[in-house]
């Protein structure tokens, strides 16, 4: 068992402070995973259409969020 899991046992799961923090952390984790996976898909030549379908969102939504346009892509290494 990891240190984190052991620590968690001491905390009541009904404590809103912990529960809400878990939700916020999960959201952060989700955003990072999404960015990572979208970048990876683009590097592997996936179209925005394919990525949107896999993420179950509209093409516009995924492009708006991750497309960035000229400025960002130029800044990338």
């Amino acid at each position, binding site marked *: 068992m*990891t240190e*984190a*899991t052991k*620590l*968690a046992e001491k*905390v009541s*799961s009904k404590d809103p402070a*912990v*529960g809400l*923090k*878990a939700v*916020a*952390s*999960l959201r*952060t*984790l989700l955003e*990072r*995973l999404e960015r*990572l996976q979208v970048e*990876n898909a683009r590097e592997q030549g996936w179209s925005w259409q394919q990525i949107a379908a896999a993420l179950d969102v509209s093409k516009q939504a995924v492009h708006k969020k991750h497309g960035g346009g000229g400025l*960002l892509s130029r*800044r*990338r*290494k």
Partner: protein
Amino acid sequence: MFTRFVQSARTAVVEAQAATRALGHDSVTPSHMLVGVARAEPELTSPLTAEQLQSAIRAPGIDRRALASIGIDYDAVEREVEASFGPGALASGRTCGQLAFAPESKKALELALREAQDREDEHIGPEHLLLALLDDHDVAEVIRRCGADPKEMKDRL
């Protein structure tokens, strides 16, 4: 804001930004500033080195304990993701973009100014910066993770 900073305090701020970039984070938190101070004035945080402190910084926005309370082992997730995408893959942000100072860091800079005023020091040095940073909860946590006592570090200043 930085006009009254001595050179080494400015170096600390620059080094804090470098540490933030190196970790792939997008916001300069007080913990990154701590690394900056350690780079600019190593004796202030001795025996802890800047490298040690830097490796003790966790990605912002993730509370491992809270995630563990719903059965998610963040370390395991990080391990798996890094196995596929390389070290730092889950770090927070677009390292190529503009770095922002976290509100807590801005607060610490103001606090450093006040520390200097209270001590009637004309200039703001890394020691004032460190004093201000030691009030931050995450900074204390980073120091403890390295096996030192933040209170002891404060008493020495």
